[in-house]
């Protein structure tokens, strides 16, 4: 069955390219006055683990308000945003085998490991399907060493649209800019955009021609293939026609894109592009993989000379290197919030209808059994989540329960995410969402 919504998802799962059809760009570009409140979710996955001591205020042992607490140095940038923050300690991900990264299992809530294909879809993809529709529902971006981002500008380690169906993340800002804003670009990017558009249009024509003589029984199946190109080309056309709108949000392409001094230049550029895809209303779900789901990564631009695996062998608490990395993350989170706050939406701003989920694909540290999986939430997704507090859980509920909560808040009624009853008997002492996080 051809299903427009599924096609949008399909493209998002590809490279976040393009869509087509009858939906108008105005309606899909996060119209603040629409009948459905636009909502969006950002996943920020820092690799190498998230030591709870780097986020839980000193002396805070049990659940309570953050109002009078002082945030630890690594996340001190979030101090002015405390009322929007919810620190959760005590979820677990034992079943995801997170030592050396759970890879797809971190967002999927199932066993993952290096080289292990996804066994089901991940929460970010599922949310992108149920959140109010946008042109490009799901965008994944990844940050790594400059060498890795150049050599492997797309990899797939964190997100998946189904079993054996990984979703690629983008790491080269030049490519991503062309994809999102080719229609309003100039110079080489414009040329590449035009050339790519021309090639894709011709591919669509060739594909359609070769489908004309197929037997009736094959028309629909092959038709989906042709329709895919129509949607890709259609979305690009619509992005082109929405150029006036996009221009307001598209970042400026500068030296960092073509001539980065450090990898962090590209990290910043990728973040700008990711944020702009939210503010421009192009996407409703953004997944950020800092370290790209693996156990390496580099932050030389922060003055961190060590890179890669060794970073994971360090104790993060009180470690100057990890303080720098976490502070950098925090500044990025602030940047997301500030940008979203600057865009009016409904009676408030975009940030009012947004949730940021900050955690690690490695639970609490690189070599871990996943018994504790700290998470920070920022924002409340139109009032759905409690904020300004710290919640200490007892380690009996899996990250899947948090993901169930996200789905519930997004309007999808389910009791469990990617966990059958048999698994739940062993790994979850309750059912449904985390009552501690939902309003």
């Amino acid at each position, binding site marked *: *069955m051809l299903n427009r919504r599924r096609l949008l998802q*399909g493209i998002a799962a590809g490279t976040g390219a393009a869509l087509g059809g009858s939906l108008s760009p105005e309606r899909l570009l996060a119209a603040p006055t629409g009948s459905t409140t636009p909502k969006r979710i950002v996943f920020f996955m820092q690799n190498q683990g998230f030591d709870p001591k780097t986020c839980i205020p000193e002396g805070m042992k049990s659940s309570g308000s953050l109002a009078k607490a002082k945030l630890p140095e690594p996340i001190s940038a979030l101090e002015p945003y405390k009322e929007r923050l919810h620190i959760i300690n005590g979820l677990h991900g034992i079943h995801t085998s997170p030592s050396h990264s759970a890879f797809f299992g971190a967002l999927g809530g199932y066993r993952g490991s*290096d080289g*292990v294909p996804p066994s089901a879809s991940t929460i970010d993809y599922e949310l992108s399907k149920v959140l109010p529709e946008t042109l490009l529902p799901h965008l994944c971006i990844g940050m790594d060493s400059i060498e890795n981002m150049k050599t492997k500008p797309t990899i797939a380690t964190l997100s998946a649209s189904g079993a054996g169906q990984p979703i690629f993340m983008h790491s080269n800002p030049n490519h991503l800019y062309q994809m999102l804003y080719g229609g309003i670009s100039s110079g080489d990017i414009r040329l590449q955009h035009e050339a790519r558009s021309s090639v894709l249009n011709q591919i669509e024509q060739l*594909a359609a021609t070769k489908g004309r003589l197929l037997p009736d029984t094959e028309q629909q*199946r092959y038709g989906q*293939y042709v329709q895919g190109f129509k949607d890709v080309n259609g979305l690009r056309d619509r992005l082109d026609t929405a150029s006036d709108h996009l221009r307001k949000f598209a970042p400026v392409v500068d030296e960092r894109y073509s001539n980065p001094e450090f990898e962090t230049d590209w990290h910043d550029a990728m973040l700008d592009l990711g944020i702009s895809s939210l503010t421009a209303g192009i996407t409703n779900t953004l997944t950020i993989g800092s370290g790209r789901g693996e156990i390496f990564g580099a932050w030389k631009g922060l003055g961190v000379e060590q890179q890669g695996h060794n970073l994971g062998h360090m104790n993060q608490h009180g470690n100057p290197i990890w303080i720098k990395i976490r502070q950098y993350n925090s500044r990025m989170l602030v940047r997301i919030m500030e940008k979203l706050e600057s865009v009016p939406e409904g009676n408030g701003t975009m940030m009012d209808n947004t949730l940021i989920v900050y955690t690690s694909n490695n639970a609490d540290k690189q070599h871990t059994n996943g018994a504790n999986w700290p998470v920070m939430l920022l924002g409340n997704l139109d009032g759905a989540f409690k904020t300004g507090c710290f919640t200490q859980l007892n380690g009996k509920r899996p990250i899947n329960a948090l993901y169930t909560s996200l789905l519930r808040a997004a309007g999808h009624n389910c009791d469990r995410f990617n966990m059958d*009853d048999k698994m739940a008997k062993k790994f979850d002492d309750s059912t449904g969402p985390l009552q501690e996080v939902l309003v």
Partner: protein
Amino acid sequence: MRRSFNRWPVLVIAFWCGIFSVANAETYTPGQPVSHDFGGFAKAFLADYCLDCHGETSPEGDLSLNDLGSVDEINASTWRNIWAQVTLGEMPPKDAEQPEVIRRLQLSDLIVGELTRVMRDRGGFQAHLDPNKGNFVDHELLFGQLPAEIQLAPTSSPARIWRVTPQEHITRLNELINTEPAFDPNKPGVRTRGDVVPTNHGGELKLYFGTDRIIQWQGGTVAYATSVKSVPVVLSSARSHGLENYPYFYTVNSAEATQIMGVAGDIIRYMAEGPLSIAEAYQITDDPKSIADKMKGDLRGLPTSLVYSTKVARPLTPVSDLMANDVVTEAGLRAAVDYLFEALTFRPPSKPESDAYLAIVQQAIDKLGKEEGAVLGLSSIFLDRDALFRPELVEQGQADSYGRVMLQDWELGMAVNHALRYIKPDETLREAIVEGRMRTKADVEREVKRMLADDSIRKPRVLRFFRDYFDYDLGGYICKDEKALGDTGVSNRGQSHYRAMFDSAASTDRLIELVLQEDRDVLKELLTTDRVVATKGDGIYFGSKRSEEERAASVAAEKEALAATAKKREAELEVIEDEVAELEEMLKASPEEKKLEAKLTAKKKALATARKRSTAAKKRRSNVNHNVNPADVSGTKMFARVSRRSFGNGSMKPERFLATVPEGQRLGILTHPSWLVSHSDAMDNHAIHRGRWIYERLLGGGIPDVPITVDAMLPDEPKKTLRERMRVTREDYCWTCHKKMDPLGLPFEMYNHAGLYRQFELDKPVDTTGEIINSGDPELDGKVANAIELIEKIVASERAEQVFVRHAFRFWMGRNETLNDGPVLQDAYRAYQENGGSMKALLVSLLTSDAFLYRTRVTAVLADGG
């Protein structure tokens, strides 16, 4: 079944009897539309055979068919159940009056037609096309005497397009950038050109770039895996058990198409420049020491940590020529286009196709310059229809009187090629196609026999059939509970078990190849062989789980052995100490004796060594797995096909041994861990899956889908055995189906869920009994003591071989058999049997059959489903 004969008005009964007599005089041709009106025919059938039990009052199973109307969206699931029960012959019950065979067939066809019509815009109805429903076609009607009223029509398959499989696609792309070694008859089993690209150390199917040229890297396994360039498979395949590749299963969605475009760019760049496209120039050297200054610091996980040799390993093609030349000529461009087109579609482009892609590439070059433009333009060819779908459209050729058209030329050549291979037709087949010698059955027979006889022509599709048929390659994907896994006796540390399972799938592949090479009684041999291809570590998996007493004895024996060793070392130490003391005394007495001094020095060194050995012996801790009595898996050295290096020194290794399984404990593939674990779950064995496999794949039985109202969960009772927990399937409602499966799966309780042989379960002797019930062959029915007896019993039957042939038919025809395929199946079975159980003979028969050679351009769904 309770029956009541007083619920239907006499008048109505008389009326339906009239219909019955009309139906009785009819003939039935499978695939032809049934002329009856659905409503009337179905109502009559239900009245005659169903309503007595499923009437208005107290209906059996709470299912009343009294007011069941024509098929609609609401009652579709009920009609689907009726279809399954009637088609399988489950209903009416055996002890009740049975309908005529053709009446049953007609109702089945009519329900399928109605469900197809009604559900067309509601997700469709395709259950009858699913390979798991292939056995719904009555085995006796296929292989036995047909009733006179059934008249068969000459068979054919529908004209169609097959989407290439994920394995096929990756192997096709791999050909563009990697040169696999040629077949070496002295090292059969080593991965060579034409073999499938295997999954990697974690079970992921990936395309690797430049790994054949990496001569040095920094760091360990994960660092290597992160540094190397690889891309995951793009095309998806959702099925996990059974035949995976029917043409109608898949299309290519927009996500896959856009990903293919991205991967295409990477491939074209690598085709052009090799490792230079993924590394800095200095990294390409045969002398890593010469770039030591550039390799300083911690580079682990970075692509710059790799050193590539200068030896060109990738295929050099017109694409690399195009990219190497500064000047773009039309000839050079066309050569690159035509080369890439044939490499991706396996046939040369027509002139219009070549012109179209030439224009695309030229335009892109005009816009972006040669390098970027050529990469972008050539990428479009990766998305040509025929690069992703294999057409069997019979657009040329004359239809015979039955409307069938025989495949010919490229379509026929590629169908034959695809039946066996994942890479493009070899030169001989290509010539035959181009020269018009692929147009007849004899042409096909000639080429199939030639390819089957040549071991250097790798035939991964044959191995794929055995993977799909046996389902032995899923063990590494079954997520195990850590404690439950540890309790089996195998290591539950890290990824050890999963790696062992991926290794075991490759080992079983190799065992199957050995049996295929002998080509005698192939199925029987696979089911009863005492041989096993194993890694050194498989001794544990093929071993037996010790009882508590045996374990205690093992611990005690080792303790004793360790103590004995420690005592021996202590004694040795004492001797040397005495000798040193004696020498010291002597030297004290004669300090001028230089020889004595030298002797003392040497002895003191020996003393130091002895002390170390003695201390070590005292400290030595057990590294013996006391939980398992390991099997001896030593034997002839051999190789299994594994991935390119994907995990540094932790990558899968090809080395194997051909060993013999412990006598009385194992018999054939179904008793190997690869199959057993593939049919297990996180906590335990999956006796139902195992039983279902036996019932469907060996006995040819059919199982209806589980009703959506069934809560298919066993109770969570850790202190009870699986057999005890499966008591819930004995409820009347469940047992109708479960009696077909459970008693066939429970004999495999002689193995635990990691595949180890066991005699005890929860400290009690394990119950391994089972039973074959209503198999369709009365000779087979009866109780069995364990899995070995079960296998021995079934393997001796003709039926198992016929069912095997049915599955081979499905795999190679890409569809379920219909009654019209009966003659094809009988011929194939005869060929197999008369040639001593030869797979080659079976394949020649199937691939020269009308079902394989002919296509019909159909619109009616029923013509496909029979």
